[in-house]
């Protein structure tokens, strides 16, 4: 990579949400005085994206503060920021579980970027652009990114950091917080498609708005994510983990591992978390058939154990389930009759019986990437349309190499267009959360700049 490192000095990052800011921060650790980093974001604020744009105090991070530093090599960075502003008690240590409001995290990333901007002002190494990117086109000397205002920017290479895809809501359902999400009578019953962490967010938002009506949450399995509990992840080594086997073999091994550890009094969370450092490796070594089966059958189970919520949030949700405010339904929507309100037919997964729910609104919290080639992001879509990029075999993201380079429709690996974050989940699988994204950004920065 050294030959390449010498030739690269200008980089455009498309997307200034959390992964874009984390990427910029890692690139700017380089001492190269000729480095030029351009960060482009369409939203009014950098560092927010979809994930951290919520203003509700009830929307807290799903990862404890110690895991949320922007820097892979400085895990205490966010914690010190919190401390410096008196936002955590003096007696608390980074090991104390603390789930900060997401808006606070957006502020942290915003301030981090402000500091970088101030520091780099004399050097001119960082440039921020508030504009929507439309497309990336490779040129003989690098790339050109076309902007919505009719201008364009050029650089040696571009890194896509467009984050979670904003897929349009399904059918009659709407996204919470979208324009269609108008005022609702407090006692109106609503339906939520999905029972995962996005459903929990929707419930918390409804609570905060003073909504008191019943909430029917529907997903294929009707599973609620588990709560965090303070623990110590078990130590595993790559030498212990069966790689490249069929899914059933791996799942059998993992279940046995949990059972053995539980016999020794160890919480299952510590086993699930102990596997985390190897999740990307496990994914990458699986045959395509195992990946497909995992996404279809096993992911729902994995997600509720792996992607957990703050204990306080869990207590609130389970209380609402017990009191009947939230009803979790395992099944699928088989028919919707629209009218003044909606009559929604849901077929139970277990009994196959169809039950009808009359609700005033349907929120789409299913969080499924249906197909990246229909992405609402014009840059991503135009790459696929022109054959410069292609969906991964699962179609959950863009196909990228192990070095984050996007792969064209004809299989050519791009030297000029790269991607980080959730867009790369087809290759890296668990790449939605800061603890994984910061490691990816650190690696990519080293790969590009040495």
């Amino acid at each position, binding site marked *: 990579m050294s030959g390449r490192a010498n030739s690269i000095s200008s980089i455009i990052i498309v997307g200034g949400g959390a992964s874009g800011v984390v990427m910029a921060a890692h690139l700017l650790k380089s001492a190269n005085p000729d480095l030029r980093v351009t960060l482009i974001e369409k939203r009014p604020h950098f560092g927010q994206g979809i994930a951290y744009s919520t203003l509700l105090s009830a929307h807290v991070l799903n990862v404890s503060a110690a895991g949320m530093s922007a820097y892979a090599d400085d895990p205490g960075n966010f914690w010190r920021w919190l401390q410096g502003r008196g936002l955590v008690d003096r007696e608390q240590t980074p090991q104390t579980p603390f789930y900060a409001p997401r808006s606070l995290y957006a502020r942290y990333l915003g301030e981090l970027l402000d500091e970088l901007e101030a520091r780099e002002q004399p050097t001119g190494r960082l440039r921020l652009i508030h504009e929507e990117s439309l497309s990336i086109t490779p040129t003989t000397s690098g790339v050109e990114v076309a902007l919505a205002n009719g201008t364009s920017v050029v650089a040696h290479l571009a890194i896509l950091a467009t984050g979670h895809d904003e897929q349009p809501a399904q059918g009659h359902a709407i996204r919470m917080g979208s324009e269609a999400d108008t005022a609702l009578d407090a006692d109106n019953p609503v339906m939520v498609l999905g029972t995962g962490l996005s459903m929990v967010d929707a419930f918390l938002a409804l609570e905060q708005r003073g909504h008191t009506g019943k909430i029917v949450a529907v997903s294929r399995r009707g599973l609620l994510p588990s709560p965090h509990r303070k623990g110590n992840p078990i130590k*595993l080594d790559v030498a*212990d983990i069966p790689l490249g086997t069929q899914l059933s073999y791996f799942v059998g091994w993992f279940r046995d591992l949990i059972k053995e550890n539980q016999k020794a009094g160890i919480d299952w969370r510590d086993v699930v978390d102990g596997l985390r450092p190897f999740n990307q490796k496990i994914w990458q070594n699986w045959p395509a058939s195992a990946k497909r089966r995992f996404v279809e059958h096993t992911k729902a189970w994995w997600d509720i154990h792996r992607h957990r919520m703050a204990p306080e949030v869990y207590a609130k949700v389970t209380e609402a389930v017990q009191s009947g405010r939230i009803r979790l339904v395992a099944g699928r929507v088989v028919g919707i009759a629209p009218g003044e309100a909606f009559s929604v037919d849901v077929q139970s997964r277990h009994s196959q019986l169809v039950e009808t729910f009359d609700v005033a609104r349907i929120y789409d919290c299913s969080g499924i990437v249906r197909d990246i080639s229909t992405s609402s992001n014009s840059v991503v879509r135009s790459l696929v349309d022109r054959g410069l990029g292609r969906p991964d075999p699962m179609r959950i993201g863009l196909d990228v190499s192990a070095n984050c380079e996007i792969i064209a429709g004809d299989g050519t690996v791009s030297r000029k267009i790269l991607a980080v974050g959730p867009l790369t989940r087809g290759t890296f699988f668990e790449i939605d959360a800061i603890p994984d994204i910061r490691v990816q950004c650190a690696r990519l920065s080293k790969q590009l700049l040495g």
Partner: protein
Amino acid sequence: MLTKKGKYGLKALVHLAHMPVGQLAFVNDIATGNNIPKKFLDAILGELRNAGFVQSRKGKDGGYRLARPADEIKVGHVVRVLDGPLAPIPCASRTQYQRCEDCNEATCQVRHLMLEVRQAIAEVLDQRSLAEMRDIVIDELPVTVKVQA
């Protein structure tokens, strides 16, 4: 350490990797061609099938073939399935850890070095595919031996 089971399993897979794509190999041919006891080979192939490395067909024309292209199956994948966690000595494994009766693991230099060896084993075996192992040119071997001597 690689057991006989691991070694036989790898030899059987190399045998299958030599077959034209999709063609089945008879268990008897694999056994005689590689000096593997037939009963032992049946058990090994059964485990490899459970893990998804080979497919079998029953009956008179039955046999085994690779379930995936030989360049997708890494040697390390196979060894873990047949022999368990990669470890040069039982005290250097995390999930299959066995304490040595006769030493203090905290101060045992041998164990310490063997942990490093474990990493090296994983690195080599997880990089090499069945196809690469199949294509190893044996002519080069004497040179390596000479260098070591």
